[in-house]
């Protein structure tokens, strides 16, 4: 560490400097306060106020209406399902590309593509899945014409829980590939060799070494996927309009003012969402620190 007083000049006293130092990040803190922290805090305060500004718990109680609980529940289910399957498939693909002894070009290609696909969310993604699994989608039509399989006859719909989960997987799997790859790279070759030389099989390796080491990373990343899906709205809105009862669409409709007519209930809805995404992110951070500690 170099002596900072030399940089600041001998005239500046210690007290002056520490005050000035914080001034350097003041623009950033001010921006964050104005456009991130204060607006969100106002919602949290508003969640405990009535229309006149008095303190109340009524908004919290109002959250326990049937359609709101259902919206939260459906959101949680879709997020959990897409995080779960996205997590498993993402781990398998990352493992295959990194440790599967495949040709060298596969890995960088997969990483680049994952970067693209994890950002290919929102409205265009909905269009892509309508063209694939919609009523006249390519896969639907091919299955009908060549396999004589009526996808929509099975009760499937792109607008349903299954349809939306399949769509979300399109950005969840690549996201998982991106965030789990460093952990899989951290699996040392020596561990595998040690296991082999002790007579362990592939099963033993994964059962006693691979999975226990990867487990916190896998769990943590899956929680991140959960939060990612939970806050998403554009894809679902473009697919289903306002017909699907998930919490982001409820909140969107509430902000647009065409349901409920109770802004303070909207604040409570938003607060509920922040609590859920906040908890899953906190879980991610905790598990990540655990997996980093285990590596040292």
């Amino acid at each position, binding site marked *: 560490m170099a002596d900072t007083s030399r*940089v600041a000049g001998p005239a500046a006293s210690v007290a002056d400097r520490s005050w000035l*130092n*914080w001034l*350097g*990040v003041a623009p*950033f803190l001010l921006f*964050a306060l104005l*456009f*991130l922290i*204060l*607006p*969100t*805090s106002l*919602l949290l305060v*508003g969640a405990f106020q009535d229309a006149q500004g008095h303190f109340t718990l009524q908004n919290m109680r109002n959250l326990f209406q049937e359609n709101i609980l259902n919206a939260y529940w459906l959101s949680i289910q879709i997020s959990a399902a897409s995080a779960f399957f996205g997590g498993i*498939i993402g781990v*398998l*693909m990352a*493992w*295959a*590309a990194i440790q*599967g*002894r*495949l040709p060298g070009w596969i890995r960088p290609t*997969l990483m680049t593509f994952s*970067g*693209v*696909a994890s*950002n*290919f969310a*929102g*409205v*265009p*993604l909905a*269009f*892509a*899945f*309508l*063209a*694939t699994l919609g009523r006249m*989608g390519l896969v639907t039509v091919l299955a009908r014409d060549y396999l004589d399989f009526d996808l929509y006859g099975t009760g499937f719909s792109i607008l349903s829980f299954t349809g939306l989960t399949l769509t979300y997987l*399109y950005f969840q799997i690549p996201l998982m590939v991106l965030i789990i790859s460093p952990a899989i790279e951290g699996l040392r070759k020596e561990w595998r060799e040690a296991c082999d030389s002790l007579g362990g099989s*592939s099963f033993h390796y994964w059962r006693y070494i691979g999975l226990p080491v990867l487990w916190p990373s896998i769990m943590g990343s899956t929680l991140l996927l959960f*939060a990612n899906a939970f*806050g998403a*709205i*554009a894809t679902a809105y*473009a697919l289903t*309009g306002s017909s699907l009862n998930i919490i*982001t669409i409820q*909140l*969107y409709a509430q*902000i647009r003012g065409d349901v409920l007519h109770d802004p303070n209930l*909207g*604040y409570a809805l*938003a607060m509920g*969402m*922040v609590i859920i*995404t906040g908890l899953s*992110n906190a879980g991610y951070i905790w598990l990540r620190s655990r997996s980093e500690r285990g590596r040292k």
Partner: protein
Amino acid sequence: MKQNRIGAWIAIIIGTLYFFVPLLATFIFSLKMRRDEYSFDAYVAVFTDPQFQATFGYSTLLALLTIVVGVLLVVPTAYWVTLRLPKARPVVEFITLLPLVIPAIVIVFGYLRMYNSSSILPMTSSERATDILLLCSYVTLSLPYMYRSIDTGLRAIDVRSLTEAAESLGAGWTTILFRVIFPNIKSAILSGAFLTFAVVIGEFTMASLLSRPAFGPYLQLIGANRAYEPSALAIIAFMITWASMGLIQVFSRNAGALRSKAEQGH
């Protein structure tokens, strides 16, 4: 060992199918506008739609402004934290990750409450003011990407020595920032910029709730009203994302090559 490879191939092939079938389906669908033959009519229809040009232009401009404002906000902050205020690093890092924790729809809801027309700072009362609010919301959304890539860039260079060398030659703060730090982390800034571009260009929630004529709400509107154009638009959007990510790769690879060259020189 052979089994290992077969399993890996299966995982990669299934994954690849999952990613390419929807793209293929979208592309084929986008060519079907003319009856009984494939054509690019849907693309022509999209590109000649004045609303497409207007909304795409609007979003492109906003994305560029977001990048400029984001860079001017994040680079000095990250630089200052690295050089003078390591204590603040966890705080700044935590704040920049918040937009990933708080859903965009919640943030914009907060804006509508805080900056409504009867508030002290009525940023939703005129179109221009709302544009600025939308710009700030995009800068907020891009913070996690911007900060992380710029911070990585700063860690790769010796900020302290560069600053001291520049100061001993009599450079002031602005000179140091713009003529020493910026050029040295150019590729990190560019990766942050392209990622920001990809995120902002099709953003739906904020533009829609702030009622600004951006590309995201236009996409949604077209999706609800047309048959073939949405597929063409999805392909175009995918190309834009692809281009952004490809450029990130190019620039980070160049940076890596430069760095290893510099290391060899030592």
